[in-house]
């Protein structure tokens, strides 16, 4: 993984001291809240319902064990013993004190971490495939490009005061595990007919109040021009963006107002200008960055056999373990979705267990996923049983990846000042209703996503079943959506009909699921059945 050089470290350390001074001036009354708020937000510090909340960046979801141990230490020292992994592969803490935030950031900097650009009108944490560098189906490791983009865009003045936040994702496989087309700007690394590596480019996606799936705006972009191309996209957006209307500032609004053809034309025009400046990075710079992501020294001659004589272990392997590119290795997913638990939450003690496992069994590497789980990317198959036993002891061995209880949920009204309704209790009640592992297995892949407001941090637009919490005259109400996907077959979920209260939404989902079980064809997933029969095929079952 990428390691800071002296310039990176100096920048982050300087930023910490700058924020320490800003915080001191706020506490001394030299800065008003109006003056201080944009400064703290640029360092990931929000003010939420119960306290300050700090969102820490995990670039493209990659962590090492020392970093996770520090995150555990922060949970204990500055928070209340836990953290929450987000849908942007980040982690956030809910109980931070302003007066302690600079010390916390200093602790993060010691392990090459920060909270810069996790808020505000900036380029947010660049997300990627949680299996990057390990997946059997990837073309190349996409993370060097994520890191290149991160370095190109961090602190760049033109990208520091954007009209609104801007989200980027990069993947390198046909299977989309990063919700690519729900991003403002997204790259899929492909090989063209001539055998060259380049980017398929998508733009204008996003969730929130006005959901759009990104258009494909370029079939093949030579890799060496990515900086010029990104500059061109941002220049067009900066030129036209509706800075007068907060609801129309996201780039997706511009892209869809101009239309795919006109937006692309303007981008290509700007792109020609930027290419002519000759400011794209030299190949040597890519090579320098890519060297940090060289594959670990995989052991040769390992066997493929896994002893599955323990039924509970076999069930975990079946659901949580996926194919690795190196013979004898596997990718192990760690569920942060225990039945009745809070999606994405993890205690300091559990973080330390996972850090130990990463150190001992996964070349000191782990990943956070946008589905709020963790991954040990490089585990020898012969070590899987030992890993599983440690996870069982830590309460982290649920076998529910992509099943009905593997629910994405935003913090909702339990924590978030923007939320209109609580998300977590709904996720908990659904998971409890379908707690039986055999029932979950029978239902098969079914991705439920819950948001507590229209900002859609819980990705309800991309849920096979989406749930949106709304405020109905002071009471919580939940809209049910069906048919969304964040996978390579991206689709936007549609509202099924009138909303429900908290108990009613769980019953409605059970009716939808049972209807699916009754009408599905063999090996047909919920989303496939929905696509075959449409909303009308489900409406009567849900509403009677």
């Amino acid at each position: 993984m990428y390691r800071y050089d002296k310039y990176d470290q100096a920048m982050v350390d300087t930023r910490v001291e700058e924020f320490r001074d800003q915080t001191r001036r706020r506490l001394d009354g030299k800065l008003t809240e109006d003056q201080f708020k944009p400064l703290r937000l640029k360092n990931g510090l929000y003010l939420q319902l119960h306290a300050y909340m700090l969102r820490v960046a995990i670039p493209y979801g990659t962590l090492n064990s020392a970093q996770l141990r520090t995150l555990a230490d922060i949970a204990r020292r500055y928070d209340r013993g836990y953290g929450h992994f987000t849908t942007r592969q980040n982690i956030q803490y809910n109980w931070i004190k302003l007066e302690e935030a600079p010390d916390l950031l200093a602790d993060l900097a010691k392990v090459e971490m920060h909270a810069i650009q996790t808020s505000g009108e900036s380029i947010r944490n660049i997300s990627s495939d949680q299996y990057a560098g390990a997946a059997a189906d990837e073309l190349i490791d996409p993370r060097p490009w994520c890191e290149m983009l991160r370095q190109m865009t961090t602190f760049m003045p033109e990208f520091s005061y954007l009209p609104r936040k801007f989200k980027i994702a990069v993947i390198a496989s046909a299977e989309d595990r990063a919700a690519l087309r729900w991003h403002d700007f997204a790259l899929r690394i492909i090989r063209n007919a001539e055998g060259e590596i380049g980017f398929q480019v998508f733009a204008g996606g996003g969730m929130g109040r006005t959901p759009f799936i990104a258009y494909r705006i370029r079939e093949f972009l030579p890799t060496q021009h990515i900086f010029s191309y990104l500059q061109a996209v941002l220049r067009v957006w900066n030129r036209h963006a509706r800075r007068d209307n907060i609801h129309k500032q996201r780039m997706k609004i511009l892209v869809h107002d101009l239309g795919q053809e006109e937006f692309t034309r303007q981008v290509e025009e700007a792109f020609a200008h930027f290419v002519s400046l000759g400011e794209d990075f030299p190949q040597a710079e890519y090579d320098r960055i890519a060297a940090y992501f060289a594959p670990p020294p995989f052991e040769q001659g390992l066997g493929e056999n896994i002893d599955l004589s323990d039924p509970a272990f076999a069930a975990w392997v079946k659901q949580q373990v996926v194919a690795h590119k190196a013979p004898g290795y596997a990718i192990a997913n760690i569920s942060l979705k225990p039945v009745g638990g809070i999606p994405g939450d993890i205690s300091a003690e559990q973080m330390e267990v996972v850090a130990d496992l990463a150190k001992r069994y996964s070349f000191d590497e782990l990943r956070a996923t946008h589905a709020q789980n963790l991954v040990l990317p490089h585990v020898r198959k012969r070590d899987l049983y030992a890993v599983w036993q440690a996870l069982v002891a830590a309460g982290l061995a649920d076998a529910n990846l992509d099943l009905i209880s593997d629910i994405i949920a935003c913090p909702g009204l339990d924590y978030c000042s923007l939320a209109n309704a609580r998300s977590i209790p709904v996720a908990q009640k659904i998971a409890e209703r379908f707690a039986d592992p055999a029932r979950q297995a029978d239902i098969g892949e079914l991705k439920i996503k819950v948001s507590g407001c229209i900002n859609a941090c819980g990705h309800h637009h991309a849920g096979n079943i989406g749930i949106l919490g709304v405020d109905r005259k002071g009471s919580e109400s939940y809209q049910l959506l069906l048919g969304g996907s964040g996978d390579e077959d991206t689709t936007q979920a549609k509202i099924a009909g009138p909303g429900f209260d908290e108990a009613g939404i769980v019953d409605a989902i059970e009716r939808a699921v049972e209807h699916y079980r009754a009408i599905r064809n063999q090996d047909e997933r919920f989303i496939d059945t929905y696509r075959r029969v449409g909303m009308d095929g489900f409406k009567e079952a849900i509403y009677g």
Partner: protein
Amino acid sequence: MRILTGNDLRTGAVVWWTGTYWSLHVEDAIDVTGEEDRIAPREEAARRVNGPYAIEAELRDGNPRPAHIKDRVRALGPTVRPDLTLKPADPAAGSWVI
């Protein structure tokens, strides 16, 4: 009745105006109807509170209960972590929010 709330500047903790100081407990809040525009700027300028605002509340069993669920969650703490609320030992605390 209208009560005044905000967050402690240093800690971010939810606080309620009692007439003389800011309390962690909504039970201590007093009716500030007509006075909120005088008290809030003064307290904020003194850095005793961050972002104060007045909300509607009703008296229930002699104690103020915020009218909106968001402020009731603020008053109690996260309903999904009763161990972290201000009344971790009170089994009825969660239903007070709803």
